[in-house]
């Protein structure tokens, strides 16, 4: 299964110009799948911002607007889009001028593929 899924996510990475990394982790930040462009970002930082997202997401859910689904963070050189798909967390890292709308639209497309990974996580 993982080859198929990896291929699919690599295809997505090529489709969205300026997208550097797609990462799927569980809510503790344990990486389940990662695809990235040659031009890498500093992976040393990645483990820390997954738990941070989980915390931010939990806090944002307390605003009285319902459950938080997505957090988009803009930086001077990067943008990070994180989606809460518990038990999974989907993280996209791209250039600051990358097409945010396109990344958000991927959410519905990847659902089918995530189901397989979700199964694997819940079984474990």
């Amino acid at each position: 299964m993982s080859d198929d899924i990896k291929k699919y996510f690599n295809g997505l990475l090529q489709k969205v110009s300026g997208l550097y990394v797609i990462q799927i982790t569980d809510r503790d930040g344990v990486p389940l799948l990662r695809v990235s462009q040659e031009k890498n970002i500093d992976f040393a930082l990645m483990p820390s911002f997954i738990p941070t997202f989980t915390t931010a997401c939990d806090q944002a859910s307390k605003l009285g607007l319902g459950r938080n689904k997505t957090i988009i963070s803009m930086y001077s050189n990067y943008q990070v889009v994180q989606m809460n798909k518990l038990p999974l967390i989907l993280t996209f890292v791209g250039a600051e001028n990358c097409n945010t709308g396109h990344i958000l639209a991927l959410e519905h497309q990847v659902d089918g593929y995530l189901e397989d990974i979700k199964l694997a996580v819940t079984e474990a």
Partner: protein
Amino acid sequence: METQLEKVLMDTAARPDTVGALVANRQGLCLVAKGDIDPNVSGIGMAIAQQVAKLEPNSTVPATICLYSGNKRCVIKNDGRITAVIFKQLTANSATGN
């Protein structure tokens, strides 16, 4: 603030054969959508416009892109700042005119 934009889109979406219309900003995020169109289309619409812009980088006037599928059309135009996407579906009447 966006009333002008809403008005323009309302007019566009009310045109014959038009199913829906939206405009997206530079980040591919939907500003306004009217009619039967998924706001999520803004991202892919802008991605298509950006891809086409690579075809003739020296062209001063942006291109109009039209995708055809049966009696349906998807028209995309980008002026560098905003992107418009219009969904059209030809009714039997106008289709016979083809």
